[in-house]
Each structure stands twice: as structure tokens, then as C-alpha cells.
């Protein structure tokens, strides 16, 4: 299991390397700082096609650099044949519904499950 931890956040790659769970608040200062997380996300695209789940239900805060990171991942993922990518999100965390819709504009097949 791969993990990346910071003072205010934790990220875990689990379930056979196809689920990434985000927790806390992500407000890193730019793409350089987000690069290890983006690499971890991209690692889910390696190997045979399978459902990939990005679980942000406990990610309370994401700055615009973090939105850029997810955009880069989605743009890379959409070019993979047979890709099944979904975000698990929460209705009670206000940035989820607001910002994840932009990712769906980049990749209409992206599924956002708000619970």
C-alpha cells in the first residue's frame, strides 16, 4: 500500500492499486509540490483496465492547484481505452459538487457519485 502524508492531509493507494483515498485539506503551493500525488494517481492507469476509484469523501479542502492536479490526471485517463473512472464525493462538502463538475466537462464519461 502506498501512502503520501502531509501536515494536513493523507493519501492512500489501496484495493489492488485501483482506489486512491484522500483525506484532510490539500493546499500545496504548486504543481511541483503536487507531482508525487499526481504520479500516484497515474500509477492506477498502468496495467489492465479496471474500475479506478478516487475517494475524496473526506477531503475537506482543495485549492486550485489541487484542482489542476486532478484535471491533469483526468485528461491523461480519458485517453485510455475502456477507462472506468469514478470519484466518490460528499454532498456535505461544498467544493465537491462545485468543482468536480468541471472534471466531467473534461471527461464526460467520468462518474461522480455524491453521497
Amino acid at each position, binding site marked *: 500500500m502506498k501512502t503520501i502524508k502531509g*501536515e*494536513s492531509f493523507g493519501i492512500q493507494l489501496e484495493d489492488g492499486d485501483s482506489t486512491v483515498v484522500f483525506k484532510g*485539506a490539500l*493546499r500545496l*503551493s*504548486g*504543481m511541483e509540490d503536487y507531482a508525487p500525488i499526481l504520479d500516484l494517481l497515474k500509477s492506477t492507469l498502468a496495467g489492465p483496465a479496471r474500475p479506478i476509484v478516487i475517494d475524496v469523501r473526506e477531503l475537506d*479542502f482543495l*485549492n*486550485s*492547484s489541487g*484542482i*489542476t492536479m486532478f*484535471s*491533469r490526471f483526468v*485528461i*491523461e485517463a480519458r485517453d485510455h481505452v475502456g477507462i472506468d473512472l469514478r470519484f466518490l464525493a460528499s454532498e*456535505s*462538502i*461544498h*467544493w465537491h459538487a*462545485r*468543482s468536480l463538475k*468541471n472534471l466531467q*466537462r*473534461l471527461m464526460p464519461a467520468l462518474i461522480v457519485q455524491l453521497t
Partner: protein
Amino acid sequence: MTNRILGYYGQEVGDRREYLTLAFSPLSAPLRSRWRNNGLSADFLGDYVTTFLPADDSTAAPEGGRKEIKHSVTYIANELLENAMKYHEHSIDIPIGIHLELTGTQITVSASNGISDGQAQCYQTFVENILREDASELLVRQLEESSCGETSVKSCLGLLTIMTDYGARLGWRFEAHPTYPEIMTVTTSAVLPLKNVSGVSV
């Protein structure tokens, strides 16, 4: 350069109820050390504003509305502060400021920092572009371009998300600095109408 106002800035909104200003000295610590303070300050402003909503407890906003306002103010303050810290002219000891103001109809969050004449020129061109185009379309286009590694679109994305995802109106004031003639103070202001926040009636 001459003083200039662009976008929705400083429109008269009637009674001024409450305001709060924080100021930071850019020379006190390196950018990376101060980055953590951006989050702390933004969280503080988000928490602080909810104590004003509304002044009369008998018409207290439902919990969902208060949480929404808190998050919106935190996000907007964080983005404006990040930009102010990143693009501030660090050779001059001018404070970086973040200002929160609440009236009966809107919340204004604004951040100010010093920039060179050249930076001011570039920023004004950039702002005119934002104001001319459809922000939602521009946001998606910038997200696509960011995948090509265009780092220059970063601050643009922050401002565009404030406009499109949070429904805030942006405005900018460029002013010649009274002490340093080669420096301009830029204030970026985001106005969040309270009617756009569900469950809140002040």
C-alpha cells in the same frame, strides 16, 4: 502607470456592517514558511464570517447555509492570499493584506500586494481577457492547457474558479504606491452575493 479599476470593484452597497483586515510583512519569513499561514488565515476568515451571520440569533441561518458561506469565504480567501504571496514584489517592504467585509447583501474578500509596473501591465492584460471572455469556457480551456504544463495559467484558474464555482464577482484596483513610485498596489476583490447562498437571509 496610472491608477485604474477593472471589473466589479467598490460598488456602493449601503451600510457597512463589519470588517476585518489582516496584514503580513513579506520580509518576515520566506514564502514556503508563510504558505502554511495562508491556510490558517483563510480558515480563520471562514470561521469568523459565520459569527456575523446573521447578527440577530432569532433569524439564524440554517447550518447548511453557514457551512456553505464558511467554505466559500475560506476558498476565496485562500486563493487570493496564495496569489498575493506568490506575485508580491518581494524586494519592497509593503504589507500584503487580506480584508473581509460583510454588509446586509454581500461578503467581500479582497487581497492586496505590491507589483512592479511591468507586472501590473501584464496583469491588466490578463484581467481584461478574463472580463472579455466567458469565464466558464475559459476555465475548461485553461484546465486543458494546464495539462500541457502551462504554469502561467495557475493564478488564472484560481480566479476563474472563484467566478464560476462560487458565483463571486471580481474586481481589481491598480494604484501607484505613494512611497515607491516604481511599485503599484493591486487589490483583487471578490464579492459574494448572499442571495446566492442557500438558506441565508440577512
